[in-house]
């Protein structure tokens, strides 16, 4: 491993210094992030959720779609008539709500990741091109994005799903399309601010081509607002997917998706409060946790808001 360069420098020393510099950046990031207590709590909740989603088959007490014919609408365990086997009770067809919630976490996180990835990929490439090239291309891209933004987002997603056909995949595509303009705008604004900075000109003088300037020089410096927006969009995506599921346009029964669970429970709101409350709470807690993380990331990444 130890290799000495011609000018007598030990490469392991160099590598160590390089690692230290990277670590210092991360330490600083963590310092500002951890100043925000809410963000840390949000992160813990979110990580717990991820863990639950990953270990769902191990920790779920029942199969999420198994119907226990002897216990329809069993109340939660601590209520009168509750059964210890069904901690959070069962729904109208006798499926264990806790297990369904645990498996539902998988779907929610999956939706968040896929939607944000699609929206990010599309948004960043369009935004980069619009901001870097400018002129007619910029106008064209931004006007199309303005048109998308002019629709109420859920309505547009609904229309898209109606066109594509109901189902979780189509719902995710629709939500990604609806969220995309925000990424395009953010990327474009950041690129336009960075484009004429000296270091970009210096890279150009050093011989960097357009693609390299866009992707390797400018983009890494535009990531901070994008990461924040991605986090907030993650929760938005979960929320929208739940809404589409509730309207019957998203995941189809018997998928244990939280929004779909709410939709199935609609008729029992007055008789059995637990069938609607727990999926609703699950959505609320997840979205809140992710939004808190997003706020913390903003504090840590956006130098303009630092210590203000």
């Amino acid at each position, binding site marked *: 491993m130890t290799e000495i360069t011609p000018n007598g420098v030990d490469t392991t020393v160099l590598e160590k210094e390089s690692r230290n510099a990277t670590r210092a950046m991360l330490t600083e990031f963590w310092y500002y992030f951890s100043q925000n207590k809410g963000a840390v709590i949000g992160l813990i909740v979110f990580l717990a959720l991820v863990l639950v989603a990953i270990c769902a088959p191990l920790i779920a007490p029942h199969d999420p779609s198994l119907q226990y014919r002897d216990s329809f609408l069993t109340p939660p365990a601590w209520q009168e008539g509750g059964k210890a086997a069904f901690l959070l009770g069962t729904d109208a067809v006798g499926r264990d709500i806790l297990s369904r919630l645990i498996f539902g976490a998988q779907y929610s996180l999956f939706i968040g990741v896929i939607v944000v990835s699609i929206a990010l990929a599309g948004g960043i490439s369009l935004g980069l091109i619009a901001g870097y090239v400018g002129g007619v291309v910029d106008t064209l891209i931004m006007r199309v994005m303005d048109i998308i933004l002019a629709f109420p987002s859920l309505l547009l997603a609904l229309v898209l799903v109606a066109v594509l056909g109901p189902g979780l995949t189509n719902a995710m595509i629709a939500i990604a399309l609806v969220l995309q303009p925000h990424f395009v705008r953010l990327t474009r604004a950041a690129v336009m601010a960075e484009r004429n900075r000296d*270091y970009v000109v210096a890279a150009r003088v050093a011989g960097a081509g357009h693609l390299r300037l866009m992707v390797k020089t400018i983009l890494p410096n535009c990531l901070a607002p994008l990461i924040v927006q991605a986090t907030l969009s993650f929760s938005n995506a979960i929320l929208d997917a739940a809404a589409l599921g509730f309207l019957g346009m998203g995941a189809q029964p018997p998928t244990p998706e939280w929004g779909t669970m709410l939709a199935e429970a609609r008729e029992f709101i007055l008789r059995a409060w637990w069938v609607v409350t727990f999926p609703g709470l699950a959505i609320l807690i997840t979205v809140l946790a992710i939004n808190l993380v997003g706020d913390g990331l903003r504090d840590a990444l956006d130098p303009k808001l630092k210590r203000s």
Partner: protein
Amino acid sequence: MSSDPILKVRDLYRTYDIKGGLFRKSSTLTAVKGVSLDVERGSTLAIVGESGCGKSTLARMLSMIDAQSSGSIEIGGMQIDIAKTGISREMRQMVQIVFQNPYGSLNPRQKIGHVLEEPLLLNTSMSAAERRDLALEMLQKVGLQPEHYGRYPHMFSGGQRQRIAIARAIMLKPKLLVLDEPVSALDLSVQAQILNLLKDLQDEMGLTYVFISHDLSVVRYLADKVMVMYFGEVVEYGTRDDVFSDPKHDYTRTLFAATPQADVDSIRKRLAAKAA
């Protein structure tokens, strides 16, 4: 005067179109009006002038960032007209630039090693190890430590960053180095260090400088020839001693008169005048 001009500029113009609005007619602004100059190999030409007189526009044209509107630039015997011919690798390697603001000219997300290696990566076909060795060598040459190789720009002071910017500019061994007010963002003691570094590098590598500045004491220290610009035009052009001892143009005289005198004698004189 030796007759080995590495940079020949003839009758250079740069105009900007100002777009008309609803209530304004469109017009053109001429930032550089008919500049001609020669720079000999291994010498320094200083361009002096107030803000907005076209110095930086000239620097951007010389370093092939912007194209000229008319006129010719010849560097190392090669005609440069990027609007017509584009920029080849060969042209890129001839001119490099150092910017005024060392805080803005380094990519905040790029480690110093990569900053220095980027020009080599893009313009040569060296292996990663060769590039690293050259980068390390250059770090030492500009007075930095090899362990700075893996650090980020925000971990450095302004003077150190300017050293890095200079190192990046000379990585490709350019024939011409354009220095756009390289020391005006630094404090005085660091200015002196950077100027000495520039002088050493010039002696060592035979670099040719076009040095843009508004600080006359810096110019007097570094320049072989001086050019004074005023509203895009050259009002004074000659060797340093000629220009400083016998300024021809009114603007040059005003400029010299506006320079604060900081030598001990003039301070004594000022104090005596105050006491009296």
